[in-house]
């Protein structure tokens, strides 16, 4: 997925002089996860460069660049580091268009690795999507595979609204079923690892059915798509797995269609449970599909604790927990 992200940046930088890429360690070195490797060499230092360690400054200058007419793609080294920039994101990027009567806007993309499963401890493992989905004016996107990562990132760069682009870091180098004891798998054999050359888009706001089923709908995104697939296989539950891909805008039609078909719904995310995006999904399903539901909506999520270092696998909502929820949903 690292290559897919780099490819998306490369395609857009080649095509559009206005696209600039920057962030901590992003320039010469190519980023701690290597997503921008080679871009400075190819496009020059003024279009791909290192930034001081100041997230509020990174986002603040990106807003100014966007208002000027560039299309900045800034990297926040870990999603956990984004909080100093919260005011710039929430009060500024998200509201420029609104407060100026559409005179100004900032078409910026903030890429940030999220999620755990790499022994990152409590400051390198968080999934803060809900702190962004709660903010009107932002779009929030999370790919689960290389094909989507490239297509969604190109869409995000071309979008005239600010986009939070969360990259599950456990998926950078391969799909992950949630079994840490099994050997790591590379993307190469995965059907969604193929990324066509050049420009293509995956539109924001369109979910994808990863596994068709009639028994229960699983709403998930990012790493949890792969975990949910594993859980369905291991339990034998006839689950329909919906990869939301984009949380705002949300593909509500796909959600409603699936839940009305299955009559059951399990929501899975890695972020903490309380006030997580799953709460919004549960409310939407309850409001729109109440009479189709055979059993209560269930959520599987990270516990409401910081992400622990040593106890990572007790925290991570792995296939066993998801599987139990699937079985419970089927039983009533």
């Amino acid at each position, binding site marked *: 997925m690292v290559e897919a992200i780099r490819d998306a940046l490369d395609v857009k930088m080649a095509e559009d002089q206005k696209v*600039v890429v920057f962030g901590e360690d992003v320039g010469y070195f190519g980023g701690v996860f290597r997503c921008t490797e080679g871009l400075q060499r190819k496009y020059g230092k*003024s*279009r791909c460069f290192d*930034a*001081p360690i*100041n997230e*509020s*400054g990174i*986002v*603040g*200058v*990106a*807003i*100014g*660049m*966007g*208002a*000027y*007419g*560039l299309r*900045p793609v800034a990297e926040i080294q870990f999603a956990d580091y984004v909080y*100093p920039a919260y*005011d*710039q994101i929430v*009060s*500024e990027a998200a509201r*420029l*268009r*609104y*407060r*100026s*009567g*559409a*005179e*100004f*806007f900032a078409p910026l993309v903030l890429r940030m690795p999220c999620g755990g499963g790499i022994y990152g401890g409590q400051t390198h493992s968080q999934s803060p999507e809900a702190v962004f989905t709660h903010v*009107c*004016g932002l*779009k929030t996107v999370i790919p689960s595979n290389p094909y989507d990562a490239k297509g969604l990132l190109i869409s995000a760069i071309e*979008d*005239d*609204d600010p986009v939070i682009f969360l990259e599950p870091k456990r998926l950078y180098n391969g799909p992950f079923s949630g079994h840490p004891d099994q050997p790591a798998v590379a993307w190469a054999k995965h059907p969604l690892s193929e990324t066509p050359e050049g420009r293509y888009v995956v539109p924001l*706001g369109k979910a994808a059915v990863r596994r068709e089923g009639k028994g229960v709908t699983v709403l998930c995104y990012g790493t949890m798509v792969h975990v949910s697939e594993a859980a369905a296989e291991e339990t034998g539950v006839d689950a329909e797995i919906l990869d939301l891909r984009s949380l*705002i*805008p*949300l593909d*509500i039609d796909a959600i409603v269609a699936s839940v009305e078909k299955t009559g059951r719904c399990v929501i899975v995310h890695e972020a903490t449970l309380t006030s997580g995006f799953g709460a919004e999904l549960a409310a939407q399903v309850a409001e729109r599909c109440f009479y189709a539901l055979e059993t209560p909506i269930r959520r599987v999520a990270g516990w409401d604790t910081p992400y622990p270092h040593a106890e990572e696998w007790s925290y991570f909502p792995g296939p066993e927990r998801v599987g139990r929820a699937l079985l419970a949903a089927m039983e009533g």
Partner: protein
Amino acid sequence: MPSAARLSLHVPEPSVRPGGKPDFSHVGFAPAGEARRPPVDADPAEFRDLAYSLIRVLDDAGAAVGPWAEALSAADLRQGLRDMMLTRAYDARMVLSQRQGKTSFYVQCLGEEAVACAHRKALAPGDMCFPTYRQQGLLIAAGWPLVDMMNSVFSNEKDRLKGRQLPTMYSAREAGFFTVSGNLGTQYPQAVGWAMASAIAGDDKIASAWIGDGATAESDFHAALVFASVYRAPVILNVVNNQWAISSYQGIAGGESVKFASRGHGFGIASLRADGNDYLAVHAVSAWAAQRARANLGPTLIEWVTYRAAAHSTSDDPGKYRPRDEGAAWPLGDPLERLKLHLIKRGEWSEERHAQMRAEIDAEVLDAARDAESHGTLHDGPTPSPASMFEDVYKDMPRHLREQRQQLGV
């Protein structure tokens, strides 16, 4: 080595409070004409003293003196005087309108008119200012229509901002005036980013960032300085030190220990401290910084020493925290009176012409107010449509907002 028996916390306190005798001995003044004028391409390390002195051009007798005195034409100066008088008359009218219930809130810039008005004249078309809520002078000096500003203050049906913003938080892209935020300091790194973008694009435009003394304490101020310094961004970093942040005197933002201009030194940024009530000094120093930025020589931080002569806003009563007669004792005087005196001394102005211009301006402001009020005020007359509330959150309205608009029934 002395030691205290117990630790105690130092909390800065202004030298005088209500009922006391005004005292500005802590501010640091210097006679007009004294500060030197380095070449624009000088190394910032060679003029660090200029962050502690005070660049002034107009002396107490109204003469333009010293190396910063420029050859501004009498016509330019009369226009400058008019811009400042118009700004003051506009403010007075809007304060009155707020008292009459035509809007919720207003922020005037009484006593600080020279800072924005003269600075604007030193910029070029296409440059972008990132102002705070007290830089209406930038718009007025750019010749922006008063009616448009008033429509925004009244949040009426002609308000281009569709009634979304508090009064004084204008947006005027064509006038090089970035949309004003209500959160302090956020515009500072944005201005630096805009300037970086201009440099990336190989453009010739510069940015001008604005902040008050109080908000220099915000992290974003320091973020902006590090980015401006690292990338040598073509930006002017204005700090308007009007001595007061609502009720907190400048010492609460760190002004007790150092001059705000010297904040630039730690970043290697060219830093100047200038008389903000001196139209000629503001113009000369701004032009110097603009020339430096446009020559790709990087940022300049300028502390404008001025005084907030009025309340912070219509919601504030400064008599609760500072002597009521403090403004009258401000040593740098009134920027309008000082420029008027200078023009009269040059034989380019008179009391009669001044009175005539004042009458013209009053009529112009009144006409504009009548025009704007005919399109509604906050609580009376036409307002923007409630349906417009859902527009511009995103470029294209997403489904959930369409549904919410339908729920509101508009």
